[in-house]
């Protein structure tokens, strides 16, 4: 039996594509990538990044002063776009602050603060600077705690950190918490910001490209790292006016059981996640109008994902990765691509696989090379992470 849909009654996004969903959609239509040569911190890497400009000069003040870090600044920026904060305030009045859950995906949270604190250790005593508030910034939970406090919510709260599937999994968590009766509605989202750990870490694994990333391209040679925040309000009902909002229709999770940093060679975990998501939604592969790929542009990811897609959908469903626009926003990739998927359904639009000059001839799935306008009812969005942790979500209209 299909799961009961959860309606997306509010959503927001901020990434290198811009602040808010209008800016995001505008950049997609104009085919403008947000990637630029790496100019972050003191990093000396020959790569491109998706940086949200201006965060450096927008500190958190007042009662959130101790939470001030790049990651929470980015979270606040996204919370204040698209009327999201107001939508949550109205929901808070309907449900009560204790009945709305907050589930936030992140891979590195405010780790940049810990990096900076280490750089500024006292040379004599090794003491970390007294301005370093680890619990409010560096710790994995800090973003979830900040979002809950900022929205004045008091229900259940979790940080989910499963590397690059983190903010896809939050949709499944929200559904289960509502189903179990721990809350009635949920704010789900993801926040991940640029830091030296991921820039140098992915470089050390030789997974970073020196050009803007080229998903599904014959000459793809790695990812471009980006940063983003996005949020969605999920409710089991909506006000009943007009056509229903786009809803979460299903989710599917799996583990690869293969390797810590390489995907399963036949895309087994990826295929299972998609099949479980379709089954959860009570849909067939032919009901899906568009697949938003994980599509990191590493040789292994795109190849194994293509195999999994072809196994599930054949060549009949249009697919694209949007990481050529945003970069790989890691723990925020799931929510960023969920918001893009909502825009695809709302506006009847499929974004092309940006920077793909020549499609890998071994690929069998239908990779979209030009922006398209066409009605979209259902989208499946893939997010896969280190440790072999996979999540696919199905978003769509309910009529």
């Amino acid at each position, binding site marked *: 039996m299909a799961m009961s849909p959860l309606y997306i009654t509010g959503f927001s996004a901020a990434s290198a594509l811009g602040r808010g969903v209008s800016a995001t959609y505008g950049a997609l239509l104009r085919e403008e990538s947000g990637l630029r040569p790496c100019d972050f911190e003191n990093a000396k890497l020959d790569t491109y990044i998706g940086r949200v400009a201006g965060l450096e000069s927008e500190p958190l003040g007042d009662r959130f002063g101790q939470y001030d870090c790049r990651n929470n600044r980015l979270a606040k920026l996204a919370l204040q776009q698209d009327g999201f904060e107001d939508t949550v305030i109205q929901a808070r009045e309907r449900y009560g602050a204790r009945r709305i859950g907050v589930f936030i995906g992140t891979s590195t949270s405010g780790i940049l603060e810990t*990096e900076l604190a280490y750089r500024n250790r006292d040379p004599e005593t090794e003491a970390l600077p007294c301005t370093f508030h*680890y619990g409010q910034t560096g710790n994995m939970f800090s973003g979830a705690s900040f979002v809950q406090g900022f929205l004045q919510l008091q229900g259940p709260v*979790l940080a989910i950190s499963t590397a690059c599937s983190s903010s896809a999994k939050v949709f499944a968590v929200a559904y289960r918490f509502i189903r*179990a009766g721990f809350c009635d509605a949920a704010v789900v989202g993801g926040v991940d910001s640029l830091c*030296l750990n991921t820039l*140098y870490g992915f470089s050390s694994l030789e997974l970073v490209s020196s050009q803007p990333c080229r998903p599904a391209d014959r000459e793809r040679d790695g990812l471009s790292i980006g940063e983003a925040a996005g949020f969605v309000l999920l409710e089991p009902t909506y006000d009943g006016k007009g056509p229903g909002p786009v809803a979460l229709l299903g989710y599917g999770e799996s583990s690869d059981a293969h*390797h810590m*940093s390489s995907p399963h060679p036949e895309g087994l975990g990826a295929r299972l996640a998609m099949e479980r998501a379709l089954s959860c939604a009570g849909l067939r592969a032919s009901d899906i109008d568009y697949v938003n790929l994980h599509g990191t542009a590493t040789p292994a990811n795109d190849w194994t994902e293509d195999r999994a897609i072809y196994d599930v959908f054949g060549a009949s469903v249009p697919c694209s990765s949007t990481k050529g626009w945003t970069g790989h926003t890691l723990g925020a990739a799931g929510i960023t691509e969920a918001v893009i998927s909502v825009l695809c359904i709302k506006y009847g639009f499929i974004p092309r696989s940006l920077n793909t000059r020549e499609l890998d001839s071994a690929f069998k799935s239908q990779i979209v090379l030009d922006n398209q306008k066409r009605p979209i009812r259902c989208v499946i969005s893939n997010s896969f992470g280190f*440790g072999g942790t996979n999540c696919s979500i199905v978003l769509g209209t309910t009529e």
Partner: protein
Amino acid sequence: MTVKIYVKGIGILGPGLDGWDKSRPILAGLSPYTAQECSLPKPTILPPMERRRASTTVRLGTHVAQEALEQSGLVADNLATVFASSDGDTDILDQLCSVLATSEKAVSPTRFHNSVHNAPAGYWSIATHSLAPSSSVSCYDVTFAGGLLDAASQVVAEGRPVLLSVYDIAVPEPLHQVRPVSVPFGVALVLDSRHSVSVLGQLDIRLNGEADGVVTTLSSLELETLRQGNPAARALPLLAAIARLQPAQVVLDYVDENTLQVAVTP
């Protein structure tokens, strides 16, 4: 709304608490507690290659998980998991941040991929060949309550058993200055909605927003120090209630004024 689940296996490792069988009489107040240092075994469930590569965090998280699994009699290959830790692998965090503070920034690739919060979940899935869903969570000081809620919601909403493993290692200097966790502690529970003869206890869990519960503490000063000294050790009052084999009401700390009210029935 109350959620009813059964505990089918328990794993525990911390100072003076080496496994459920040895810890049970101590937590029940029948034998004295001595906070002696615990050595971390290398979990036999990990293949030799992974066992060698595994960090302290991975070893702690998978060791207690293995103990709980073996007690439960369930098989790992389709058992969903929740791995929960406040701070993750602070040894690796310390190493990476130290390297990134130098001008060369020569990050080790193995260290980097082991640094993800879900590393124990990844090693577990590789070791058990499990393709089942897995989550990795953090809730700072109240990570045990957060992990328990996540696992309980899966048991109820998906109708499947879940293996929950909660752990935090001792935090190294200089991070210890801002996160003074001085001893390692790990606990794992196999939770299920179905009763069976092997059940160790029934839990009726309620997320309470009325702030009328006083958080349950431990009568032994040493154990109470441990409870407060490691986020995973916040599980101790619940484990003590199960160990005493008598009905009890346990109140666990959660965020803000929320508490988790857990009625324990043997």
